[in-house]
């Protein structure tokens, strides 16, 4: 019976990511505690309690927003009390940032981007995509705690448990090791330049463009197509590196890993690095002039045409169909 702790970042809600994360934790046999950092809405804690044995709402001065050293110190303090075998986090920037550091603080071992979690020989095993999506690795974490961030959105949410877990509010005072560096870094400005209002990771439909678009203007055209389908816009690394669209639009190994119901790849050839980011998409389709483009190997269906001739009429057609 493992002692499993799930850590949520300030501002976390019971969304697809949190639900997936809890589902991944519940797939492992164990005592499940959720640590919520900062204040949380009552219905959020209630939903969490439906999925876990215990929910700890950790409060501390300044914890209403994410500051890396503060949140790290709080998690370290609470986790030290809980003495977990496994600590799980989601795939957001903050969780990714803190995963190795919490492992370091707790004397454990860390890993990221787990796509599946199992217990073997009493150890946590994860599978993860490596070599730019060309290979899969099964990795065993043999030291405790095993601190892992998981590709949370790719886990299907689990049904609520029969009985609700406990909810405890805990005020945390940082001291010793946990208190150091709290003043060393401070996030002073936060900018959201979302391509829409929904995070790419949460998007149900994504329209992505690639190198073949040749510039920033065609992304404007794709915008109306995306709006018609209520989709988010995304891009390949080539398009982001060229500065045609902002870096956070990037989907792929080094960008977002997305899990939409529908992913429409336009003028994207499908380098494996890109494909790695869409491995969890339900339906992938592409518009590309080259029928040999690797992207088609990952498509359920595809259109071999020049996007220039397609996007305009396609948007009109979809408007009619979806109205």
């Amino acid at each position, binding site marked *: 019976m493992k002692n499993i702790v799930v850590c949520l970042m300030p501002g976390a809600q019971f969304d697809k990511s949190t639900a997936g994360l809890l589902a991944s934790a519940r797939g492992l046999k164990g005592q499940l505690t959720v640590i919520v950092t900062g204040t949380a809405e009552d219905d959020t804690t209630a939903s969490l309690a439906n999925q876990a044995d215990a929910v700890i709402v950790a409060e501390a001065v300044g914890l209403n927003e994410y500051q890396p050293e503060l949140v790290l110190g709080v998690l370290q303090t609470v986790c030290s009390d809980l003495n977990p075998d496994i600590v799980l986090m989601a795939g957001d920037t903050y969780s*990714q940032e803190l995963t190795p550091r919490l492992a370091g603080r707790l004397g454990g071992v860390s890993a990221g981007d787990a796509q599946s979690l199992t217990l073997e020989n009493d150890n946590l*095993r994860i599978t993860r995509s490596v070599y730019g999506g060309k290979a899969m690795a099964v990795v065993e974490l*043999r030291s405790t705690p095993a601190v892992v961030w998981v590709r949370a959105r790719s886990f299907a949410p689990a049904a609520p448990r029969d009985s609700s877990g406990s909810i405890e509010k805990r005020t945390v005072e940082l001291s010793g090791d946990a208190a150091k560096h709290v003043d060393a870094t401070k996030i*002073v400005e936060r900018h959201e330049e979302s391509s829409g209002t929904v995070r790419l990771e949460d998007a149900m439909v994504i329209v992505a463009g690639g190198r073949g678009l040749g510039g920033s203007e065609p992304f404007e055209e794709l915008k109306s197509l995306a709006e018609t389908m209520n989709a988010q816009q995304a891009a390949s690394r080539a398009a982001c590196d060229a500065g045609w669209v902002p870096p956070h639009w990037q989907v792929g190994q*080094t960008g977002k890993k997305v899990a939409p119901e529908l992913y429409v790849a336009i003028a994207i050839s499908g380098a494996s690095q890109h494909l790695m980011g869409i491995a969890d998409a339900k339906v992938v389709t592409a518009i590309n002039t080259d029928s040999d483009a690797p992207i088609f190997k990952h498509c359920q269906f*595809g259109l071999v045409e020049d996007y220039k001739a397609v996007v305009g009429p*396609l948007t009109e057609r979809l408007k009619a169909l979806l109205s």
Partner: protein
Amino acid sequence: MKTLVCLKQILDPEIPPRDFTINRDSRQAVQGSANLVTNIFCENALESALQLRERSEGEIAALAFGPASAEDSLRKALALKADEACLVEDDSTAYRNSATTALVLAAAIKKLGEFDIIMVGREAGDWGAGQTGGLLAERLGLPCVTFVDHIEASGDGVTLRRQTELGWEKVEVKLPLVVTISNHEENVPRIPKTRDIMMSARKPVTNWKLSDIDLTDEDLKTTGDALDVIDLFIPEKKTDCEFIEGDSLDDKIDEFAKRLAGIVQSA
């Protein structure tokens, strides 16, 4: 400002899929005819360091942990005018996890001296673990900011810009610290001048064995065992894409639109 940039040499991530093979026994990729290259995010980190030095002076040291071939990555850093370079040579071809790498880098950094900013790539193009930066910070007892794409000296501290899912954040930090560097159009790696490439061949590269930084194989075994690769395999790819057919472009678009609409409506 003294900057240290950690460089990892990896198997060329652009190796074509057909050329990519793995050895299931050693659970590592086979190099074959592919080249070893410097991890792109490490190159982004070096570029960020070079730009920082251009803006506010200082020195840049480059550090690598890997086989003798990793000296190439350091030579390239020297060609780009890094001030010094140090290789901790790994005699073993065994897989080294992030914990081991962080252990070795931390020991080497302690021996190299004091640095204001220690930069690592956000992750490597081979194993893509993304753990080394954070683990290194903990080993060194330093704060850490990840996914940084711009560094600006301000007063006695430094202001960072870092990427988040939805945009970016400005972070004010005190030195020293560890940052992991992400890619941005601003830190696309420059290429060295030919003369500097030729000159770099003659510059010294400090070469240390593990014993030089007071580590033993046993130390590395401990961190190595804590996280082990059980299996490595190439997943099967599905190849059954159905290409939309039609007598005319209009027909094809019609059919394509219907399919998309069907999925969107049920989503």
